[in-house]
Structures are given as C-alpha cells and as structure tokens.
C-alpha cells in the first residue's frame, strides 16, 4: 500500500473512533448531538498543549486527554441533556460553535494560527509513522469497539436503551434519565477526545476550523449511514464516506454536500442504516454468523 492510501486509512480509523463515540450518545442513548466535533477538537487541543507546553509524552498525555474531554462532556452535558430533543440539537450545535470560537480567538489556543510543533508519537524509541501510526489507530479503534460492546451488554447499556425507547416507562422502573444519558454522553465524548489526540499527533499542526460544525455533520452522516446504534455501523460509515471521494475524485470538492445528502437520504429511506434492523447488509452478515448490536 502506498503512503497516500495509508494516510487516508489512518484518517478513516480516527474518524471511526470519533463516530463510535457519537454512536454511544445518539445510537445507544438516543440523544441527538450535532456538535460532536467540538469534543474531537477538545481532545486534539488538550493533547497538543500537554505535549508542547507541558512537555508530556503522547502516552502520558493520552489518559489526561480522555479525562479532560470526558469532564468537559460532563459539565456541558449536565444542563443540555435535561432539554427536550429539539433544544438539545440546537444546544449541541451551539456548543460546537462556541468551542471553535474559543480555539480561534483565545491566544492561549494559538488563535487563528492554530497550534504547531506537536511532537510525533514514539513507541519503544522509534517514531510512529505511516503504517505503524495506522496500527496504533486500529488498536485504539479496536479498544473503542470493545468498550462499546461491553457497554451494550451491561446494565448501564440496558438502561440507556430503555430510556431511548420509552423514557417514561424506563424511569418508572428505577432508571434515572439524567444519570444514564450523562453517562453515555461522557463515554461518547471521551472517545472523541481519544480520536482528537491521535489526530493532533498525526497532523502535528491543528487549527480551530478542523473541528467545525461541518465535521459534526459528517460524523453524524457516518453513524446514520452505517447504522445508528449498531456496533460496526460507525466504522462502515467512516469507511464509506472516507473512501468514496478518493475513488470518485470529482466528488472531493462536493464532500460536504455529499455527506449532508447521504444523511438526509438515509434518514428518509433507510433510517436504520446499512447495518440496521432489516437491511440487506445485515442479513448478509447474519447468515455468515456474525454481527451483534444493541
């Protein structure tokens, strides 16, 4: 595989990690979030600052990055998740714009120039580049999938599904709505933070516009396309939306249009997504004895 394909695949793996996080929030807990890129950005900026200004290694910074992003998710989620669905959609968009502006206008975050000089990741004394960086991303993607799967099989996962389906009925069974929505939100944003850290050290230069609202829409398109609430859906979605513009080069300029169009078409015609209930692909997988979902 050439360097270019490896770079594309690395981006796809990172976006898949972030999309898996969004899937926990939207798919498992049924909470709309249209500002997920903000948490991707918070992860990226945290890792960049911790490794440049605080001089930590990527490995030392990573747990902190996850903690920081999850905590910000907690603080922002607490008031937002009490809102009705339509208000939540608007609020999460707002969060995205505010976070982006903070990165853009606060000098500490490098302002319009962004943050550069982010060190590359070293592992056992060697710099991780090309395929090795991709392997790291795939390992972490595997970890995220494992956690997602564990979550769907846990009591907390069941509580989230129950809330997603019938909130009143679920709370009449002792499920605290805010507690479990928040748990899913924190877990999902923490995953976005992990993806952000990888992104920062892959690019080694980041700026606010990398984490804007269009990316949030793209992430949502990935989840909806692949199959909202399924385990592998976000990965499939990230893969398709990542590969499509590469295969059909003319599409590259219309990426955003394509992503938004896919989002709308899927919601209209196949709301369960490619791997969702009753889809062609899912039938195929199941005959081979595979896949599970929530």
């Amino acid at each position: 595989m050439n360097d270019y394909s490896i770079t594309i695949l690395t981006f796809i793996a990172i976006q898949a990690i972030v999309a898996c996080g969004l899937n926990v929030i939207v798919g498992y807990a049924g909470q709309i979030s249209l500002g997920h890129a903000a948490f991707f950005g918070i992860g990226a900026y945290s890792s960049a600052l911790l490794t440049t200004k605080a001089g930590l290694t990527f490995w030392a910074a990573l747990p902190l990055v996850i903690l920081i992003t999850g905590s910000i998710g907690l603080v922002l989620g607490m008031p937002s998740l009490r809102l009705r669905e339509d208000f939540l959609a608007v609020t999460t968009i707002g969060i995205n714009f505010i976070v982006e502006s903070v990165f853009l206008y606060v000098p500490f975050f490098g302002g319009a120039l962004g943050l550069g000089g982010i060190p590359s990741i070293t592992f056992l004394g060697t710099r991780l580049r090309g395929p090795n960086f991709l392997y790291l991303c795939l390992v972490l993607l595997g970890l995220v999938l494992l956690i997602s799967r564990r979550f769907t099989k846990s009591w907390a996962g069941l509580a989230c599904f129950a809330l997603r389906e019938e909130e009143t009925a679920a709370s009449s069974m002792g499920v605290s709505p805010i507690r479990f929505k928040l748990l899913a939100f924190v877990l999902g944003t923490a995953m976005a933070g992990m993806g952000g850290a990888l992104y920062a050290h892959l690019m080694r230069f980041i700026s606010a516009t990398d984490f804007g609202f269009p990316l949030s829409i793209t992430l949502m398109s990935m989840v909806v396309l692949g199959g909202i609430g399924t385990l592998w859906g976000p990965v499939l979605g990230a893969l398709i939306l990542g590969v499509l513009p590469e295969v059909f080069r003319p599409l590259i300029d219309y990426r955003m249009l394509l992503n938004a169009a896919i989002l709308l078409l899927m919601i209209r015609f196949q709301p369960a997504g490619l791997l969702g209930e009753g889809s062609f692909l899912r039938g195929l997988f199941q005959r081979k004895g595979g896949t599970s979902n929530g």
Partner: protein
Amino acid sequence: MLLEVSDLKVCYGDIHAVEGVSLSIGEGELISVIGANGAGKSSLLNCVMGIVPSRGGKVIFCGRDITSLPVHERAREGIRIVPERARVFPRLTVYENLLAGCFGMKDKISFPEKLSWIYGLFPVLEERKSQLGSTLSGGEQQMLAISRALISDPKLLLVDEVSMGLMPVLVDKVFEVMEMLNREHGLTILLVEQNALASLGISSRSYVLETGKIVLEGASGDLLKDPKVQEAYLGL
C-alpha cells in the same frame, strides 16, 4: 395504610384533570377506580407514580411523603406501573424488557427464579422471549407490561386500563391473574378501569371518578348494586 393520597390535583395548563382526589390503600388490598374516558384516571395514576407533577395535595407511601420524589426514586421505593397502552420497549427483546424491569434490583431478587415464575404465569412470553417487543400482539404487550412490573416484586402495583383494546377472553385472563396475584401473593394493586364490571368484580373496594373528582366510594359489592353505578357504568 400503604398508600395515602390526599387532596391531589393535576393540571395540564388550564385543564384540571384531577381536582382534589383522596384515596387510600392498605397492604394486601385490591382497589379499583372506575370512570369514563377522560375522567382523569390516568392522570391520577401517573401522578401517584410521579410521571405527571401534582398541583397540590400529598402522596404518602409507606408513611413517607413522596410527593416531590422523581419517578425513578418512587420506583426504587417499590411502586410499579403498568402504563396505559403497555409501553413496552419496542426494540428490546421480551427477555430484555423483563430484565429492564428489575433494574437496580439484582441484589434484592433472584432474577432466574422470578423469570420462571413469570413464564409460568404467561407461557406465551417464554415462547416469544427473543422476539422484539414491537412484534408482539396487543394482548402480548399487555402481558409483557404486567410482567415487567411484577418481576421486581413491587410493594404496590398501579394498573392503567389493562383491558383496553383486548379481546374479551384476554380481558378475563388478565383480570384472573390480577385477582390471583392479590389473593395468593398478597400483592397490593390499584386498578383504574373503564371496564367497571370486571374491576368491581375483583376488587374489594372501589372509587368512582367523574371529571377529576371522586363521586362515590365503597365496597365493590355495594357499588355493583348501586342504581347510579348500574345506570352509568354497567349499562343496566
């Protein structure tokens, strides 16, 4: 008294759905509230569960004032509701629906034991255990909703028009189960129903609710003979 409701009020904007209802249930009783469509039965029951807020009055459960507790905390106190139109979790399997029913109770009850008891009560649920809730018939959904509430071993079961939309044979079956749960297991049940004949038949005491107010109360046997009840609710 296990549950004491005093002067309870429920409003939706300007609509007064419940206007100062007082009722009480002792442990082990089966009580019914009968009333026509729109009388405020669901509002009353939902307010006891905490699903709709009260605009006045008190709900005392096990001697504790729970009027300001949120729904999930009332559930933890041991109150369960079989909601109107069942409200099963459509995209969870029958088994997962039942599992969700004993959320947070795993140390207090033996789930496998309870599960086989439920399957004994409603064998059709065992046949359908890996089917999604949405694929069940209306009657099966009601059975699932009852089971989902029962599996946690509640102290008080609230049942909202379980007979609505069911075939007559199923109505009989469901009422038989309610009666059996009360007689043999000592379960305390508060039933609200439009189906006055069936609910008066299995309850010991009843209240008649009309436009948000209790207009009549007494032993169910006496109410069955009451000319006003016979005319308005039994179609005699």
